[in-house]
């Protein structure tokens, strides 16, 4: 596997003004690292990758890496990516989006991208909070947990992102954590190779906001928690509902083959041209 220094040299933008904006201990960089390793394993050309994001701490990821990078508006990464993919079907389009970006303001776009089964890989960085704006509750903040807009405890019930995208029609769903970097890399690899709309939900930590207000400790403690609650899918299949209480099932949760949007559109073009409605 590619070494850290080689990874940095090969994929980071040397002419970008570092340092990055993330807090010490933040999980976002780790996930980005797994993504880069997946891309490296697949030997994809940098020119052939479009990396698209929305707004949030997660949304800042593209600026640092040497691909075709597009940092869009809050919640809208998927429709931007949809237009780009249709214009350039040969590009591998990867979207990085936060839990708020993808399931609150961008929730509508998420379910429709799933339903269309357009060949885009979406990595959802789920830190259970609006990190960038300082820790307000998001659609994935657990019931009862605190955030800076629910200091007495969240009374809303959270989305289960993986279940949501499966129901909406995604044809590949994977879940991992920022602790399980190797598993994460392998899932991202499979997601990129998958033809159709693929979602990788990554459980991660925001020690600065969610961690602090919920007294979850620092980055190390939060990573240890990820290690403890994650149960691989195969192992989970043998566990009882009681044993699975409070656990997070990881691995490739779903993989199915359905017609992909751009390919179907190509058949529309063929039909239209044979009818010659030009």
């Amino acid at each position, binding site marked *: 596997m590619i070494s850290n220094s080689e990874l940095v040299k090969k994929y980071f933008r040397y002419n970008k003004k570092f340092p990055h904006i993330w807090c010490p201990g933040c999980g976002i960089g780790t996930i980005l690292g797994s993504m880069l390793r997946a891309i490296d394993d697949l030997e994809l050309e940098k020119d052939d990758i479009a990396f698209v994001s929305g707004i949030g701490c997660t949304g800042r990821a593209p600026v640092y890496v040497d691909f*075709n990078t597009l940092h869009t508006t809050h919640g*809208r990464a998927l429709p931007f990516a949809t*237009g780009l993919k249709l214009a350039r079907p040969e590009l591998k389009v990867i979207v990085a989006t936060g839990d708020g970006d993808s399931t609150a303001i961008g929730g509508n776009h998420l379910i429709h991208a799933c339903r269309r089964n357009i060949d885009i890989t979406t990595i959802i960085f789920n830190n259970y909070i609006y990190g960038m704006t300082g820790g307000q509750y998001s659609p994935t903040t657990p019931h009862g947990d605190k955030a800076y807009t629910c200091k007495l405890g969240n009374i809303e019930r959270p989305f289960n992102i993986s279940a949501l995208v499966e129901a909406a029609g995604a044809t590949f769903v994977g879940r991992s954590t920022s602790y399980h970097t190797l598993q994460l890399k392998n899932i991202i690899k499979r997601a990129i190779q998958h033809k159709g709309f693929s979602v990788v939900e990554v459980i991660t930590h925001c020690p600065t906001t969610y961690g602090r207000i919920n007294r979850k400790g620092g980055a190390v403690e939060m990573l240890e928690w990820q290690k403890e609650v994650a149960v691989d899918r195969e192992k989970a299949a043998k566990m009882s509902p009681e044993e699975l209480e409070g656990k997070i099932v990881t691995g490739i949760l779903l993989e199915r083959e359905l017609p992909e949007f751009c390919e179907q559109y190509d058949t529309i073009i063929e039909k239209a041209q044979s009818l010659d409605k030009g």
Partner: protein
Amino acid sequence: MRKKPSYQLMQGNEAAAEGALAAGVNFFAGYPITPSTEIAEILADRLPANGGKFIQMEDEIGSIAAIIGASIGGCKSLTATSGPGFSLMQENLGFACLAEVPLVIVNVMRGGPSTGMPTSPSQGDVMQSRWGTHGDHPIIVLSPASVEETFHYTIKAVNLAEKYRNPVIVLMDEVIGHMRARVSLPPWPMVERVNRVKPNMPPEWYNPYERQASGVAPMAAFGDGYRYHVTGLVHDAKGFPTANPNEARDNLRGLFAKIERGFREICLVDYEEMEDAEHAIVAYGCMVLSARSALEQLREAGHRVGLIKLGTLWPFPRFALERYLPQLKNIIVPELNLGQVYREVLRVNAGHANIEKINRINGTIITPEEIIKTVKGLIR
């Protein structure tokens, strides 16, 4: 692909779709809304046969996002909508202004605010088209006054968007959108097509926002081998976010400078019977039709009246007025709003002539007779 010239009876909305195709538009994303829906339907039908693509998005926020994405992928992109959808597009319209992404929005206005009067004519979005998105930003807005002009203005809009790397809005009203008229359609090879300037330097030397002498930077498409960053944050010449005051100034001032440089080319204005005019009607969109008819009758009655027809609303073609101000006693501005262009006319006039507005916001149009009455009242 149209190879021979032809004459066709069509609606304004059809003419917009025809113009888009003739201009080389090969991507449309939209969400249906009265009174613009025909444009989406026609392009859904016609684009694939021409090798282009159409997608119906989940809403107008997604529609404009998708055309921005496609434009970054190298497509000539367009969407069509009306008031409620245009409101939803505003945030990403600002993105396209700042990231300098060419695109065209056709807004067939309806009565507003809110759901308003979906099938009634209005010109209520003039100011929204200028200032709808937040922050200081440049914008180009064209307003056709006939079916045939809709065809030509849509082509012009696509070409200006490509040339200036800026969103262009075709601001139509329901009268023009649904009016039927015979249109002369040129063969496509006869249509002027402007393509954005692409970089020709090696990728290592490419700075996506480094302006050339034209004021515009060459634009590579994603996938062309020029890897670069596009963001809605204020950025430096490399496209990377910056908070440096000098770089921020260069970024934002540069947006305006490129449009100022093209001001004369962008401003479409026609003058009718203005040489000896002492009174001018300033009109755009469907109000030109009433104004023209009023003008004919007033001239027949021996009054020295002329028409200044604004084809471009933004940037506001102030020279069109300034040129005639010394000879004008009265300027009459009929609008299907409460005076959105009137205020611009006031500003440019700076006390020279007397300015009279005629306004209507009840879903009906201002008739030639009403304009005649106003003009006669002023002359007396």
